[in-house]
Each structure stands twice: as structure tokens, then as C-alpha cells.
């Protein structure tokens, strides 16, 4: 019996395979288009979400940068004048870098050594975890475990062995997972009195320092006003009380304080009824209560607006001065008794107002910017804060996976239809000598080509859509700070996933096609 020498069967060259596949694709363009559309939809969806997330993250960091000066200012004002809340202290201990300025401040106030500071920092971190655990308990479970204790009380409450036993039982009944375990909690509670004492030392020293600052340095002046005029002597004064303010800090604080003070002056003008009235008319508002600082700043951010404002003030001053001196005229003109009294009692804001036009415009713009950034920040923190993978909640990931699965099903369906349509052709190819492997490669390759096409279209679409959505959500900042590298990386990922999707989807239909018996081609009767 003869044996076939299969060596003579040369494998089809790659070029030839590509040619055959491409001419096939051209022929079946409609079916291929459907598949490409499905894939590009899946890819575009993924890319839009990735793009939005990436852009949101970038915008968040840009906002962070831009709001840093103001945040520093707010921090210093409260640091210098307000005692710390326990929660504040715990948070600061948990997160401040060791050896930095804040660290040194706290250490000095508490008269602690490095070891104690480290221990405080670590226990603060543990406390945050426990706090979150307790906060997330459902009401019923919490009552059972902790009675009425809340916040830091919980740790003193659990020091009592009976209460702790109750807690243990209730916890295992509740089925929740205690982070760190029971032993860790016990050792934490055992340490708690010491921790509380050390922290108390820090807070009371700090409170004393703030008292000293308020009485000794500020006196009657408001903090904002004082800080707006600060110079090097502030550094020395605060250092004595244990604060560690750097020269850069002070420069920033001074500038921000100046802006705050002037903003308050400008906003204060709205108190004067005549000014408020004039504004109401100019801004075309229904009632005087609709005129607030934001509206005023909106007007003053332009040079024209400022000009008008100053002119109006001048008019009012003139009117009041003139009229007050003329008895009887008060009733004729619309000047309120309030205004007269104020004028008489003290220098009225209308008269005290002495800011130049450029400063007004500058302050107004800064004020509006701060409001704008606030708004964007709250939107962005929802998007970028997410945690999870790449900032996506597990819910979002589930949705994306489902969408990919659905599209995969669609592609499998389209390919199966293609295979069914081509029964004859496949079987004929087999009669002509095509191996199973060739048929399979044919289909998978076709699918890969569609995947590439769909991936490109989808990525581009996703980039455009993602950028557009971010722009509508966050305004010009999204485009101005576009993180091109990240966006392209995200596009690359989406593209690759699109190709993978279509190749995977092709496996089953390709196998079905490859297994087709050639006798399908011969349909006698």
C-alpha cells in the first residue's frame, strides 16, 4: 500500500493568505461593516470611559495646584486662631509626613520624642480604619455592638470588659469583618488612654498658642486684615508660639489674605441699600435679594463694569453729601434713614471704599475663579475619586465587561452567519485542498482585520467623545490640561482590547467552519 508523502504540500504563503482574505472581505463588505460597527461601539464605549477618567484625574490635579494657595491660607488662618478638633488632630497625625513642619509642630507642642510621635501616627492611621468601619455599620448592628457610644467615645466605652464582650458577640452575629482582627482592636483599646493623653497634650498646648496669638498678636484686628499686612516679624512671633511658618508660606498667605480682605470690602458694598438698588437695576434682577457677591463679581470682572461701579459710587456719595446738608430734601429724594444714620455714626462703606479700579477687577476675577474651581472640583471628585482599578468602581468595570460580552456575542453571531452563508465556499475550498487549519486561519484573520478597523474607529470616536463629555462637564479646563500621553495610552489599550475581542469571538465560528465536511459541497439530489 502506498503512503502519501505529505511533504510536498507546501503551506500557503502569508502574502497569499492575506490576499485571499482581503479580497474576501471586500466582497462581503456589508457583513464586515456590521461587525466593524459592533466592535467600534464596544471600543468607543470603553475608550470614552477611560478617557473621561483620565482627563478627570488630570483636571483634579490641575485644580489642586491652582487652589493650593487658597487652601494654604485657610489652613493657616484656622491653625493660628482655632483649637484643633479631635478628628482634625487624628487625621493630621495619620497623614502628615514624618519630619516635616507639621510633624515638628505637633511634636513640640506635645513635648514628645520621635518614638512617641511614630506611635501616635501609626495609631492614628489604625484609628481611621476603625472609625470608618464603625461609621459604615448599620444602625441596628451598631446599637447592638456599641450601645450609644459614638466617635472616640467608642474606644473608652470598649475598655470595659463587659462592654467588650457584648461587642464581640454582637459583631460575630452581625457577620461584618473587623479590620485588623479582635486582638489588634484589644491592644488598640488598651493603648487608648495613653494615646488620648498624649494627644490631649498636643491639643491643649496648641490651643494655648492660638489664644496667645489672638490676644497678643491680633488684638482687635481681624485675622484676614492682619495677615494681609504681614511681614517677617510674623515669622518670628509665630515661631515663639510653636508654629513653623516658612517665608514662602507667609508670602502666599499674605497675598491670599489681601484678596480676601478686598473681596470682603467689595462684597460689603452690597450692604448699602443705595448700592444694592443701583446694582439690581443694572443687573436686571427681580428683587434686591437676588444681588449677591457672585453677581457683583460677575459685573466687576470687566473693566467697563468696574468703571460703572466706581462711577455709581461717586454719584451716590455726591448725592448723599449734598442732600444731607440740605434739610427737607431728604424727603424728596429717595434716601433712607438708614443711610443718613450710618453716615452720621461712622464712615459709611460708600465713603470708606477706596480701592483702585485695577484691584477691583483683579479681586473680582480671583473670586469668580475660586467659585468656578470649587464647582468643577466637586464634579471631578466624583469621577476621579473612585478607587478600584484605574479609578473605576467595580460597578463601572462590571458594566464595561458586560458591554464587551454583549458585543462579543454580536460578533460571534455575525461570524456564524458568515460561516453559514459560505458553507459551499468553505467545502469547495476543502475539496480543492485547503486544510482545516487554513480555513480556521482564514476566519480568525478576517476577524482580526475587522477588529483592527473597528478598534481604530472606536478609539478615535472614544477620544472625541471622551474629550467632548469632559469639556461639557468641566469646561475649558478639560481641554487646556488635556493629558495627551495618558489619553493615547488609554486609546491604545482600548484598541488592543477591541482586536482581542474580535479574535476571541472568531474562535468558535472558525472552529465550526474548519470542521465542516467537504461533502457539503456536493449536493447530489
Amino acid at each position: 500500500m502506498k503512503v502519501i508523502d505529505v511533504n510536498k504540500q507546501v503551506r500557503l504563503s502569508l502574502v497569499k493568505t492575506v490576499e485571499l482574505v482581503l479580497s474576501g472581505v471586500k466582497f462581503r463588505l456589508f457583513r464586515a461593516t456590521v461587525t466593524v460597527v459592533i466592535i467600534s461601539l464596544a471600543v468607543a464605549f470603553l475608550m470614552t470611559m477611560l478617557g473621561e477618567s483620565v482627563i478627570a484625574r488630570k483636571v483634579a490635579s490641575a485644580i489642586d495646584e491652582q487652589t493650593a494657595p487658597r487652601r494654604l491660607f485657610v489652613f493657616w488662618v484656622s491653625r493660628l486662631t482655632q483649637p484643633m478638633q479631635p478628628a482634625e488632630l487624628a487625621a493630621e497625625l495619620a497623614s502628615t509626613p514624618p519630619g516635616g513642619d507639621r510633624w515638628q509642630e505637633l511634636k513640640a507642642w506635645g513635648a514628645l520624642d520621635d518614638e512617641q510621635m511614630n506611635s501616635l501616627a501609626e495609631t492614628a492611621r489604625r484609628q481611621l480604619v476603625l472609625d470608618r468601619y464603625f461609621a459604615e455599620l448599620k444602625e441596628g448592628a451598631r446599637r447592638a455592638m456599641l450601645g450609644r457610644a459614638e466617635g472616640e467615645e467608642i474606644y473608652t466605652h470598649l475598655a470595659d470588659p463587659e462592654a467588650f464582650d457584648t461587642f464581640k458577640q454582637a459583631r460575630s452575629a452581625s457577620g461584618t469583618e473587623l479590620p485588623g482582627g479582635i486582638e489588634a482592636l484589644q491592644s488598640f483599646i488598651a493603648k487608648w488612654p495613653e494615646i488620648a493623653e498624649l494627644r490631649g497634650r498636643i491639643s491643649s498646648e496648641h490651643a494655648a498658642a492660638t489664644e496667645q496669638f489672638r490676644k497678643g498678636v491680633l488684638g482687635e484686628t481681624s485675622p484676614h486684615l492682619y495677615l494681609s499686612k504681614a511681614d517677617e516679624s510674623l515669622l518670628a512671633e509665630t515661631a515663639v508660639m510653636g508654629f513653623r511658618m516658612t517665608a514662602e508660606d507667609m508670602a502666599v498667605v499674605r497675598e491670599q489674605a489681601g484678596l480676601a480682605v478686598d473681596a470682603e470690602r467689595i462684597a460689603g458694598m452690597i450692604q448699602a441699600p443705595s448700592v444694592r438698588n443701583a446694582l439690581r437695576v443694572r443687573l436686571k434682577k427681580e428683587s434686591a435679594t437676588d444681588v449677591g457677591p457672585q453677581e457683583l463679581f460677575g459685573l466687576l470682572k470687566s473693566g467697563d463694569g468696574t468703571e460703572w461701579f466706581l462711577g455709581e459710587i461717586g454719584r451716590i456719595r455726591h448725592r448723599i453729601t449734598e442732600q444731607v446738608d440740605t434739610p427737607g430734601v431728604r424727603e424728596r429724594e429717595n434716601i433712607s434713614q438708614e443711610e443718613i444714620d450710618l453716615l452720621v455714626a461712622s464712615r459709611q462703606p460708600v465713603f470708606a471704599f477706596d480701592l483702585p479700579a485695577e484691584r477691583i477687577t483683579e479681586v473680582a476675577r480671583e473670586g469668580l475663579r475660586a467659585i468656578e474651581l470649587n464647582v468643577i472640583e466637586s464634579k471631578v471628585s466624583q469621577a476621579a475619586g473612585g478607587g478600584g482599578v484605574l479609578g473605576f468602581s467595580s460597578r463601572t468595570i462590571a458594566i464595561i465587561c458586560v458591554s464587551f460580552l454583549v458585543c462579543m456575542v454580536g460578533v460571534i453571531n455575525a461570524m456564524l452567519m458568515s460561516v453559514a452563508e459560505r458553507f459551499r465556499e468553505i467545502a469547495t475550498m476543502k475539496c480543492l485542498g485547503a486544510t482545516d487549519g487554513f480555513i480556521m486561519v482564514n476566519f480568525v484573520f478576517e476577524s482580526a482585520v475587522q477588529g483592527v478597523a473597528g478598534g481604530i474607529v472606536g478609539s478615535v470616536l472614544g477620544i472625541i467623545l471622551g474629550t467632548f463629555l469632559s469639556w461639557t462637564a468641566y469646561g475649558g479646563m478639560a481641554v487646556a490640561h488635556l493629558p495627551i500621553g495618558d489619553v493615547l495610552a488609554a486609546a491604545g489599550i482600548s484598541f488592543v482590547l477591541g482586536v482581542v475581542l474580535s479574535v476571541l469571538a472568531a474562535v468558535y465560528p472558525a472552529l465550526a467552519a474548519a470542521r465542516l465536511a467537504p461533502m457539503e459541497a456536493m449536493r447530489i439530489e
Partner: protein
Amino acid sequence: MTDGDETAQVQDDAAERPVIIRSVDLQKHYQMGEVTTQALRGIDVELYRGEFICVMGPSGSGKSTFFNMVGGLDSPTSGRVFIDEVDVAQLSAVELAFLRCRKIGYIFQTYNLVPYMTCLENITVPMAFAGVSGDEARTRGMRLLKLVGLEDRWFHKPIEMSGGQQQRTAIARSMANNPSVLLCDEPTGNLDLKTGAEIHDCLMQLNKEHNVTVICATHDHRLINMADRIMWIRDGQIERLADRSDVTVETGAIEGEENE
């Protein structure tokens, strides 16, 4: 193969030409759920190299199953099929593909050309599978097209050709790798009488001039007229296998057509 078979073959050779396809107690049954359909119930036959044989039989007779066996498209449930002395049942999938590519040419009732390829490209597909280089494939292809009389239509797509031209293209394709056997399933089934005649002539030419064995399943009397032997299959067995000379065939004439 045992000595006994060889003796038989020598005896055959003494009388006849060499055998190209042989089946020994060929059986095939299909399992469709609970029902077993016995398609072939033991077929013993020898087909000689270079002959023109027509296979006839009513539907359900096992004619198509027999074709599948003989054409290397399916394997028997029991019994053997030897194509050019190679036992088909022992071949792997790749080896079977090789067989189909080089040894056997197929011609279908529905032509089965690739619709998005030109005439010439269609013909060169089997050559591509056989590893023939592009240039040589095209040269051979043009030669084959000249053989069937289609050389000026080499660039046409199937959709631009008539049924007869498509079938001639299919015939040229089937000859691409110089097969020893041509399997034809109702080649003139979709064609009118006049174009059918072109096909007859074509097949005749291939059979006589190129010594290609032609196995035809057909109801066309003119093809039967041209055959060397005729086989009838019924109920999965050979009902009758006769030489052409032993059979009377009448080909009718439609007025004016017969003369062509």
C-alpha cells in the same frame, strides 16, 4: 494486501488496464439520533485508469454517498476504499487534503466558483494550495483556459459569465494540479442542451487526450452515450455494472438541436 488480492490484480491486468479506484465491501451508515440509515451495504468495484464511467441511481440509492467515498470526502464505516492504492481510511486530515488537492478534481452541479475572484484566479486556487509559485500558476492557468476555450475571458468574474462558461472554468480548475480522477456531480444539470454539449466535448477531450479517469453522476443521456461503462446503484448496492456496448441508449432530439 494479501497474496490473494495480488493474484486477482494480475489476472485483471492481464485482461484490463490498471485500477485507479477500488472499493472492497464498502459500507456506510449514518446515525441520526435513534435512527440508523444504511447508505451503502457493501460495494465492491474496480474503476480503471482512463475510463469514463457514469453512475446512475434514484435518490436515496447511496449514489452520493458512494461519490463521497470515492472522492476522499468521507470515510467508510467499514470496508476499504483505495484511491491509487492508498487506503483512504488510514489518512489523517492533512493527508486527505493533500489527496483532494493533487489526485482528484471536482466538478459540481452548481459550479462552486469563488464569486469574488476572476476566472484565472479561480483556476489557480488549487495550485496555491499545492505550493505552486504565482508566475507558474498563472502560466499553467492560462494554458488550462486555452484548453477549455476561455482564454479571452480570464479576467471575468463568475457573475459575468454564462453557465456553460462557468462550468468550463470549473473544469479547468479541476485540472489545475493534473489529477488522475475527475469526479463530476451532474455537470450538465444546470445547463441547457446546447451549452451541455460544450461540456460533453470538454470532458471527452480530457478523457481521451489526457487520459484522465472521469466518474460522472448524471441523468444526461448524451453523457451516458459517451461513457465506457455504466453503473447503477440502488439501495446501497450495485445493481448493474455494464459496458457501454451492452446497453442501449437513446438520445432524443429537439428540433434543430441535435445537429450541433
